[in-house]
């Protein structure tokens, strides 16, 4: 940092693609026959990968394909079972994160490595604290941190405690940490997962800036749109193996999804018959006490799938939570199944037939230290199916859950295992199983497919379609645009706590939805 340059000097090379095709420039990083074995699973099998200076190389693949394992090895956080990593053409051992950093390789993992109680500046210089006369140079630290943040264009104050920052801001600190020393390889693991559109834009601008200076970027994503937007090349992984590598220009949606899932998926989204019947949920001009929802009216009928789209933080989730009794209302009226339910508790809403699937299965959805049996039956435990008097009918409970697990194709099929030991997709199946143990009039799915693999995603969509055709009302709240476009019969688009527009069947197009994401329609 002392020379004021954020980037390692890179000899001027031809653009990434040309350099490699001609075989002239050396790749920044290359792996040969990389293998990683965990007990019972080969996370990586003979993976060859390379990264050229100034390119954005996307790693694409289902959950569990081995993406995170690959980058953790490249970042020195993990050691391969076999195979070799080359940095600038020489064999390199990256025994730990420090050694990788010394070679200019920095990673921003999904799990942040920040100390919440320390300030932004203290986190940035953790492990390399500037000193003066043998004591910490606290003033200098803050000043240098602030300079770094400004150079990167991050609107953050260096003296704030990290625990008070939003997830996007914490990610900025992680990225700034990578830029603290000379950088030649930047690794980003699903960086946009929790960013708003605007934050995503500024991340992309930063990536472009780094790229122009010759930094190589490894970028993990689930989102096909992002590949179009920023990638130069794409490597697709499946079950720990490299399925293929191609120029981003040739990476169309169908090819990518087929490579990733290993089978042709002609139809991800099922066609749902649109047969709206009576109104099940009606919210009339509701506002929440915390101001996250203002003057919103929506209704959902049985036999239809209604979507709510919008940016992260636009209040779309809060509308459902207010109806479910999780957020206190300041104004307005909520009617469910013909009853006024203002001020109702989740317990009462459940008993009336309102089932809510929370967006964060770890935080609010599942009791990770308990089994599938106990998790699935929890919302319905007091019903006759699972208990008589205060005593539980444990055999009936097991039978019900076992049947549900089979229907949902829980894998591994072991309903006594702690839910925390399942993969993300299978945890989501357990979470959905919780909604299916009792009679339900309205299913609310808040981000139903976050962090699940494609095959689970498809089966979730099919289930949603079945529920709707079985006569239930369905509300889908989603940040995943295709979900709104292809699955919903009707959709609301929200912005800053208001409903911007209601789109009827046949009107839900990408342009229409996106045009209401940002400002109030005039």
């Amino acid at each position: 940092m002392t020379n004021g340059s954020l980037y390692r000097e890179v000899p001027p090379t031809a653009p990434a693609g040309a350099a490699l095709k001609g075989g002239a420039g050396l790749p920044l990083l290359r792996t040969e026959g990389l293998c990683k074995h965990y007990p019972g699973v080969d996370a990586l099998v003979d993976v060859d990968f390379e990264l050229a200076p100034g390119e954005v190389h996307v790693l694409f693949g289902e959950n569990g394909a081995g993406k995170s394992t690959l980058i953790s090895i490249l970042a020195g956080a993990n050691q391969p079972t076999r195979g070799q990593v080359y940095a600038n053409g020489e064999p390199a051992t990256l025994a730990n994160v420090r050694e990788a950093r010394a070679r200019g390789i920095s990673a921003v993992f999904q799990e942040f490595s920040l100390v919440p109680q320390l300030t932004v500046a203290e986190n940035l210089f953790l492990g390399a604290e500037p000193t003066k006369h043998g004591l910490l140079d606290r003033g200098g630290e803050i000043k240098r941190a602030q300079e770094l943040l400004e150079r990167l264009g991050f609107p953050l104050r260096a003296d704030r405690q990290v625990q008070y920052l939003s997830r996007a801001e914490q990610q900025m600190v992680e990225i700034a940490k990578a830029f603290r020393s000379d950088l030649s390889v930047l690794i980003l693991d699903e960086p946009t997962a929790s960013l708003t559109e605007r934050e995503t834009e500024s991340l992309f601008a930063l990536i472009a800036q780094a790229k122009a200076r010759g930094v190589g970027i490894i970028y993990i994503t689930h989102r096909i749109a992002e590949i179009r937007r920023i990638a130069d090349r794409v490597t697709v992984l499946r079950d720990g193996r490299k399925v293929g590598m191609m120029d981003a220009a040739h990476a169309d949606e169908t090819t990518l999804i087929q490579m990733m899932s290993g089978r042709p998926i002609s139809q991800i989204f099922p066609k749902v018959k649109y047969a709206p019947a009576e109104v099940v949920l009606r919210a009339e001009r509701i506002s929440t006490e915390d101001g996250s929802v203002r003057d919103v009216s929506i209704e959902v009928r049985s036999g239809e799938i209604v979507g709510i789209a919008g940016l992260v933080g636009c209040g779309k989730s809060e509308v459902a939570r207010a109806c479910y009794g999780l957020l206190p209302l300041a104004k307005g009226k909520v009617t469910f199944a013909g009853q006024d339910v203002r001020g109702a508790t989740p317990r009462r809403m459940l008993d009336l037939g309102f089932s809510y699937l929370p967006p964060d299965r770890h935080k609010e959805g599942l009791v990770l230290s308990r089994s599938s049996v106990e998790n699935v039956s929890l919302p319905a435990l007091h019903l006759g199916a699972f208990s008589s008097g205060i005593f539980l009918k444990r055999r009936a409970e097991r039978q019900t859950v076992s049947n549900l697990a089979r229907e949902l194709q829980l894998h591994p099929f072991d309903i006594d295992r702690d839910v925390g030991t399942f993969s993300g997709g299978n945890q989501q199946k357990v979470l959905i199983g919780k909604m299916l143990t009792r009679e339900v009039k309205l299913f609310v799915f808040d981000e139903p497919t976050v962090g699940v693999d494609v095959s689970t995603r498809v089966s979730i969509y099919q289930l949603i379609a079945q529920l709707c055709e079985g006569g239930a009302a369905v509300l889908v709240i989603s940040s995943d645009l295709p979900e709104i476009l292809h699955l919903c019969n009707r959709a609301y688009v929200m912005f800053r706590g208001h409903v911007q527009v209601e789109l009827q069947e046949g009107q839900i197009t990408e342009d229409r939805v996106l045009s209401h994401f940002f400002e109030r329609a005039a």
Partner: protein
Amino acid sequence: MAERVMERQAQGYEQKLQQIFVAVGVLPILLVVAVVLFSFMSDYFLSFNNIANVLRQSSYLTIVALGQMVVMVTAGFDLSVGSTLAVTSVTSALAMSGIAAGNPDAPWLAIGGGVVVGFACGLSVGIINGLGVALLSVSPFIMTLGMASVGFCAALYLTAGMPVRGIPYEFADTFGSGGFLGLKAPVWVALVLFIAVYLLMTWTRFGRHFYAVGGNIKAAALSGVNTRRTLFLAYAICAALTSIAGLLLTARMETGEANIGTSMPLQSIAACVIAGVSLRGGTGKVPYVVLGALFFGVVENGMNVSGVSSYLQIGVTGLILIFAAVADEFRRRLSARTKD
């Protein structure tokens, strides 16, 4: 040849041992080791009298640990169990001696009255804990630490620090030294309570709710569980069990004492932890907690009968606890390695 066979056999045993260790944890193994060790150190140790004695000595801790476990499963702990014992003991003794002084011919009237008063006073400590934790969201540490002081203070204030005498001797005779089929009354009470708590935790909705609230309180709330009532109940149940232990201890000592439970918070938490009850909540099995309490009873008794100095004993208990935690961590890693 023979050597090779023996080696293979040894390896087989080792693997078996590992499997047992992963399956049942460190506690049963520790218990067996302790029993074997002490039976070598003292002939008396395995005699029927001594075993009955160990069971009786452990019964009080067992009952309190059962209550402690209920609270720990909800991701809390109760530091006021010692004061609950003290309050119960002192108030029940005061009530008994008071009533007995007025009605010398009706000892069972005094006993009944004393039991009701003592139990109610002990339970009230748990009710206040429960209200603080569930309604006011005070952290369990602060709430129960505070009540530990308040309860101890009340017990001291009521007795001016002196033992309360004048308990009808029928009380001590029946619930202290009395017995049935060779086992003392507190052992039978502990057995009944063990079964009751086992049923509660594994076979009722309430038990299920304790685990769910301790494992993830938000998920429980969203699933329609009344989390406040659940938390409140946990502290109330813990105090109720502790009060029963307090009554039994009073009967045993034939006096009401304010300082009968000073080591109980630590011991009961230790018994739970060594039994695999997580400090983070959401896990724990009732039979193991009983084994945990028994284990500490065995160690204490074994060291007594084999003449280990009482100063050393305190240290040994601490070391065992740390060892158990280390072994448990090792087991977790081993089980991750041996999975599929």
